[in-house]
């Protein structure tokens, strides 16, 4: 049950965890330039305190009561909206995960971003990002989630475009923002549908607390399906699912540490988190849609990752693929497994990005030192870094093994649980695609590891007379990576390295009541053969990658093969969207511009010209006729005056003559008339 709506120690701690990043954002944002070290210590320490507060919340909330704190917010008479925070197991888990990973990323960034021109801006925006994400996690109503959801989009826009003076970064953040807006609109429509249906947006009232159903479960209509799909569309955009995934690879334009955070715990996780939050809303049809979209996304992204040459792009598509797996798990009703995978994935994907950042950072240093011109993210130029950067290699290998889902590593636990659930679900397409995905995953991640860390150093081959030897990153970067590497093993999740069913995460998270969707019961046999086959497949793929990229004995598809090109160009989605949406839109914009310039402006200008012409006529009339009349009259009067003035000579005789003349005139006139 909801314990209280009053502020308690636990909700207070959660509120503190939420507010501190905002404070950090404001302090560094306003005074970052004046502060010593540009205020990075504020961001790190505040985030760490936030993490400590989150841990306190987590310890006191996990498998205990739901803590809820809310205040009345908007009261419109019919609809009363409250604002508050609600901490259940899911929120507590996410809270700790997000603050922990952000703390690590911030510590890493202190070294990674060193010497950057907008150093303080980075830390300030990252704090805002953290604040937004924590808001999404803690919010107790859909409206609040939506507000923080928008903030997440906005702060990711700031961070992706961190190097805003680069055109590609500016284009990437716009793309991310616009694609996210598409989902946001759908999300908002979903919220509105729920509001009109149920007159409340409170999560606990809508979806129930701890196994007791909310109003949504008691009213199963088609409207719910539509609302669910609308909200899911919002999650599709944030979590970069098919068909709105196109922004995430471009978002690699931001600093690698930002990518790490976006991909691990904040932005893309927000989509999965939202899907998990509104899970009771999904009808079986909606769940099928989610499952198919997730599976399709995971397969598509994995197939694209096979051929990419950009180090970060491979990881980006890998994230899309892994998120697809989570979504598919949601869709088949494996709710706890999906979140379990979210947690494990957060650690190893963060580690993968930080490792990649370490490599890029050192190559960038080499580039800078020797004034060379090459792309420090291009895997074709790397190789042999195993000896130069042993710690980075080691932690990257751990993360790669976790991603491949090999035993003893965290990825194995969560991914195999999802696969087992998938094979026992009714949709046959989902398990097939997911299995293919896991096979692809092992291949592309070891292709990356072999290309970057094994074989010979290609840069040395390119510049033979220079000593292009990158060295290991500093202790801040390696330290955080080692911590993450420990978190990528089975040890903190489950005592049994081979099976994750009894992991504390799974035990703590229970599928929300959804009367329409009976939780699937895993097949006994599937529990045995699914892990064995996937591990065997993965090992085979690693061996294949080893033969191809280390021993150089196997080649697969040539670069001119259709499938290679299809994968390399990311299934031509960007081109397709350009043809389908961008170009028509640009043409329409061109037409509107033409219409504006020619027709609207034409009418306006025509009217202006008409008025001008009319006023010219008026002006002419005024000048020539009216002024002419007035001036003429004045002239006439003047002339008459002058005429009479001429009589006034000042001589007495003239006056007299005039007097006589006047006299004569009077006499003559009086005779005539």
């Amino acid at each position, binding site marked *: 049950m909801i314990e209280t709506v009053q502020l308690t120690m636990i909700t207070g701690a959660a509120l503190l965890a939420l507010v501190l990043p905002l404070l950090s954002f404001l302090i560094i944002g306003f005074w970052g330039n004046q502060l010593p070290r540009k205020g990075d210590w504020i961001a790190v320490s505040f985030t760490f305190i936030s993490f400590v507060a989150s841990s306190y919340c987590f310890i006191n909330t996990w498998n205990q009561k739901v803590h809820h704190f809310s205040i009345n917010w908007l009261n419109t008479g019919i609809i009363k909206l409250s604002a508050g925070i609600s901490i259940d197991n899911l929120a507590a888990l996410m809270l700790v995960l997000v603050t922990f990973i952000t703390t690590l990323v911030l510590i890493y960034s202190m070294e990674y971003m060193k010497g950057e021109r907008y150093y303080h801006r980075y830390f300030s925006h990252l704090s805002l990002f953290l604040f937004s994400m924590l808001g999404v996690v803690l919010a107790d109503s859909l409206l609040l989630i939506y507000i923080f959801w928008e903030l997440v989009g906005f702060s990711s826009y700031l961070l992706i475009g961190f190097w805003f003076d680069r055109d590609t970064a500016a284009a990437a953040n716009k793309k991310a923002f616009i694609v996210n807006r598409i989902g946001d609109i759908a999300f908002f429509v979903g919220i509105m549908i729920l509001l009109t249906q149920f007159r409340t947006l409170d999560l606990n009232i809508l979806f129930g607390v701890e196994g007791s159903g909310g109003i949504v479960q008691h009213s199963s209509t088609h409207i719910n399906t539509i609302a669910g799909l609308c909200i899911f569309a919002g999650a599709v955009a944030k979590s970069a699912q098919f068909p709105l995934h196109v922004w995430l690879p471009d978002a690699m334009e931001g600093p690698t540490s930002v990518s790490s955070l976006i991909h691990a715990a904040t932005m893309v996780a927000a989509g999965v988190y939202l899907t998990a939050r509104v899970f009771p809303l999904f009808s079986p049809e909606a769940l099928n849609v989610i499952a198919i979209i997730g599976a399709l996304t995971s397969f598509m992204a994995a197939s694209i990752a096979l051929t990419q040459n950009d180090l970060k792009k491979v990881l980006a598509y890998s994230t899309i693929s892994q998120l697809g797996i989570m979504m598919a798990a949601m869709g088949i009703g494996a709710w706890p497994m999906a979140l379990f995978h979210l947690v494990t994935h957060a650690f190893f994907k963060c580690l993968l990005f930080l490792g990649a950042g370490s490599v890029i950072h050192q190559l960038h240093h080499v580039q800078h030192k020797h004034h060379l011109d090459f792309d420090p993210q291009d895997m074709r130029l790397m190789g042999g870094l195993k000896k130069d950067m042993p710690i980075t290699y080691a932690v990257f290998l751990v993360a790669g093994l976790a991603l491949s889902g090999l035993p003893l590593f965290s990825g194995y636990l969560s991914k195999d649980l999802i696969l087992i659930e998938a094979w026992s679900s009714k949709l046959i397409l989902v398990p097939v695609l997911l299995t293919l995905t896991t096979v692809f995953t092992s291949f592309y991640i070891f292709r990356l590891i072999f290309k970057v860390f094994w074989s010979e150093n290609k840069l040395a081959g390119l510049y033979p007379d220079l000593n292009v030897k990158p060295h290991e990153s500093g202790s801040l970067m390696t330290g955080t990576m080692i911590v993450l590497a420990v978190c990528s093993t089975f040890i903190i999740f489950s005592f049994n390295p081979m099976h994750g069913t009894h992991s504390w995460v799974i035990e703590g998270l229970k599928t929300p009541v959804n009367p329409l969707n009976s939780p699937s019961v895993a097949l006994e046999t599937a529990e045995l053969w699914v892990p064995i086959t996937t591990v065997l497949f993965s090992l085979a793929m690693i061996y294949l990658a080893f033969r191809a990229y280390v021993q150089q004995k196997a080649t697969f598809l040539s670069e001119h093969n259709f499938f290679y090109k299809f994968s390399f160009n990311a299934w031509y989605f960007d081109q397709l969207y350009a043809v389908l949406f961008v170009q028509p839109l640009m043409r329409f914009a061109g037409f509107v511009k033409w219409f504006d310039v020619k027709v609207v402006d034409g009418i306006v200008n025509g009217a202006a010209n008409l008025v001008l012409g009319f006023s010219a006529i008026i002006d002419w009339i005024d000048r020539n006729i009216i002024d002419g009349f007035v001036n003429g009259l004045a002239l006439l009067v003047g002339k008459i005056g002058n005429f009479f003035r001429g009589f006034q000579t000042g*001589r007495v005789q003239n006056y007299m003559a005039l007097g006589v003349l006047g006299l004569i005139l009077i006499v003559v006139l009086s005779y005539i008339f």
Partner: protein
Amino acid sequence: MLNDIPLEHFVIISAVLFCAGLFAVLTKKNAIMVLIGIEMMLNAAILNLVTFGAFDKHKNEGQVFALFAIVLAAAGVAVSLAIILNVYRQFKTIDPSKIEEMKY
């Protein structure tokens, strides 16, 4: 005697005299001559008065008018001469055509 001469002749003489006086007033370059012209015009008028008085039913009415007119003319001449003297003191000339101060 008077009755032998018709009235028109007196009137004509008077008119001629008047015109001669007027001409002198309008054209002479000497203020004294202008005064003389004025006197001639006055005399023309007085002649008219006397003439009309002769034909009048009332006794000597015209002559009385004439006497008044002569007195007035004498007074006028006295004033005029004083003006002319002052004009001369002011402008060092008594040519009326050179004195243009009456404009203002």
